[in-house]
């Protein structure tokens, strides 16, 4: 699914060259739920950008679903981002002017597939449990709900991989757990998920943990006792799941 080989990335600012990635190699197979953890400056954001086809490596190879990402053109990368990758961002990045359904439909504008865009978006919203909110605007949704809309948007093109960059970073504990519970359910349904985080407690919800340090891989191991977000939600005092704070 994902194959990285000796990946490096250098940034040049004036005369100063920063080495963000100094030779990273790993593979992610179909159906895995991987957390990539690292402190700020460890290169995890750079890695995320390259994995997502938003940036190209300085050297090394990166193959996604058999496609050579290091040598793809800008237009090709756009197409790959559209069809193969589902992004979930820390800040959600929803369009304020559009309701939940329209936001979920956004990637379909750039897809050349046919079919009923609204129906597909509706299904994606149902998958994150937000069918009832499809005509609400982002301002009318809680943070957790906004992130769930963003997850639906990432799922609507049926991508081969879900890339999440600090998906719980802007959420309180309860809403964070809700998002993680959705990821775990998607994982059980066979989705491939790569999640970037700096928080070990969040990373513990994945099945495999890759630790990044100073642009190199410092550790790569299965999570021995993954935490169950749904179970934690049950233990968290307060209101019922799905009715997070506004």
């Amino acid at each position, binding site marked *: 699914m994902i194959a990285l080989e000796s990946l490096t990335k250098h940034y040049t600012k004036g005369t100063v060259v920063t080495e963000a990635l100094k030779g990273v190699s790993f593979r992610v197979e179909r159906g895995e739920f991987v957390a990539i953890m690292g402190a700020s400056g460890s290169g995890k954001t750079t890695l995320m*950008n390259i994995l*997502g086809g*938003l*940036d190209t490596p300085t050297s090394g190879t990166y193959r996604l679903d058999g496609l050579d990402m290091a040598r793809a053109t*800008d*237009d090709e990368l*756009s*197409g790959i*981002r*559209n*069809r193969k990758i589902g*992004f979930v*961002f820390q800040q959600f*990045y929803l*369009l304020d*002017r*559009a309701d939940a359904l*329209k936001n979920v*439909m*956004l*990637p*379909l*504008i*750039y*897809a050349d597939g046919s079919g009923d*865009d609204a129906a597909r978006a509706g299904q994606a919203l149902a998958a994150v449990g937000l069918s009832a909110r499809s005509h609400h605007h982002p301002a009318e949704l809680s943070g957790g709900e906004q992130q769930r809309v963003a997850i639906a*948007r990432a799922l609507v*093109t049926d991508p081969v991989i879900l890339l999440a960059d600090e998906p719980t970073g802007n959420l309180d504990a309860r809403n964070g757990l809700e998002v993680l519970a959705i990821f775990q359910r998607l994982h059980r349904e066979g989705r491939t998920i790569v999640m970037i985080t700096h928080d070990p407690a969040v990373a513990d919800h994945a099945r495999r943990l890759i630790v990044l340090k100073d642009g190199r891989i410092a550790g790569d191991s299965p999570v021995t006792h993954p935490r169950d977000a749904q179970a934690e939600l049950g233990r968290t005092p307060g209101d019922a799941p799905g009715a997070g704070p506004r």
Partner: protein
Amino acid sequence: MQFSQNAVLSCQILAAHPLRTLLSIAGVVVGVAAVILMVAVGQGAEQRILDRIGRMGSNLITINAAPARLMIGRSRTVATVTTLTARDARALSEDCPHVVAAVPAVSKSLVVHWEGRNTTTTVVGMTADGFRVRSVPLASGRPFDADDDRLRKRVAVVGQTVRRNVFGTANPVGQDIRIGRVIFEVVGAARLRGTDATGMDQDDVVFVPLETAMRRLLNVPYIQTIYVEAESRRWMDRVERDVRGLLRERQRLTAGRPDTFTIQNQQTLIRAERETARAMTLLIASVAGIALLVGGVGIMAVMLMAVRERTREIGLRRALGARPRDIRVQFLVEAALLSGGGGVLGFGIGIGAAVAAARLGGWNASVSWTAAGLAIACSVTVGMVFGLYPALRASRLEPIQALKSD
């Protein structure tokens, strides 16, 4: 489908900032409105001038017994020339082909009296054909005829301005008026004719038979003007040439000497008016061009602002799979929507103003759909041209930097 979805979203975004959107298209709105108004008014005015010329008879060639001089940009006949006679007019109608009639005429400004009231007006002496040749229809009574002329009868036909000034509401037909020291019987009243191409009131006139005017009023053996009616518009230039040749021959003008008379051809006048109108249209077009240019700059400023403001949205769209081309198209469509909307709005305002102006001015506003279509097409083009640079800037944003911006 996808394109229309995006266009709808663009509209929503534009509608979210109504004031800014309105301000950005103000230039285009004003530009297009001004063009529509000016074209409508210009065409209305042109039509009016052509109507006036037509009212004087469109197959008409006028010969004045004085050489033309250019005075303050206008051609005028000056001095009194005594070489033109009624015999010349007769010769023209007999010897020139394609001439239907030649009407000799004299005129002088005289005072008209009736029951203690008086007015100064132009008294025109002409042959009976003059009513037809000069398009003078009667409102009441009868015109004078060839016999009246031959017998030097003291009969008169009054114009509407004279009728109003002297008779008020009374029926002028049958009344006796005094012109100078001579008593005339009013036999008819002309219908309202309005102003001519030079703005002269064509109703401030009293028509009397030519012979009567020459022998009883003015006591002159010469005439001032000959009105020549050509068979049709087609022959106007030919007739003008023949008339000039014949008159020069009759007046024994050797080659190289200037004409002692002036020939005014209605078709030439119409052509000149058309040319003036064309120059006016060109002026309007250039003003419109400048207005649209300014409008375009406004749209460019707003689009640049929009690109800055929506940098993150652009980054998001790129991350979700939009190619640079898609971003470019989106912003171009938005610019075109803006300017096209401005064009339509300006068109509406222009039409409204033209209709209002026409009502005030009392003429028909003729709205040219070609001009309207052209104005809107131009405004859309302006939007696309000035939206191109902002759109290019938007499409060249790096997705990561764009996403991270705030």
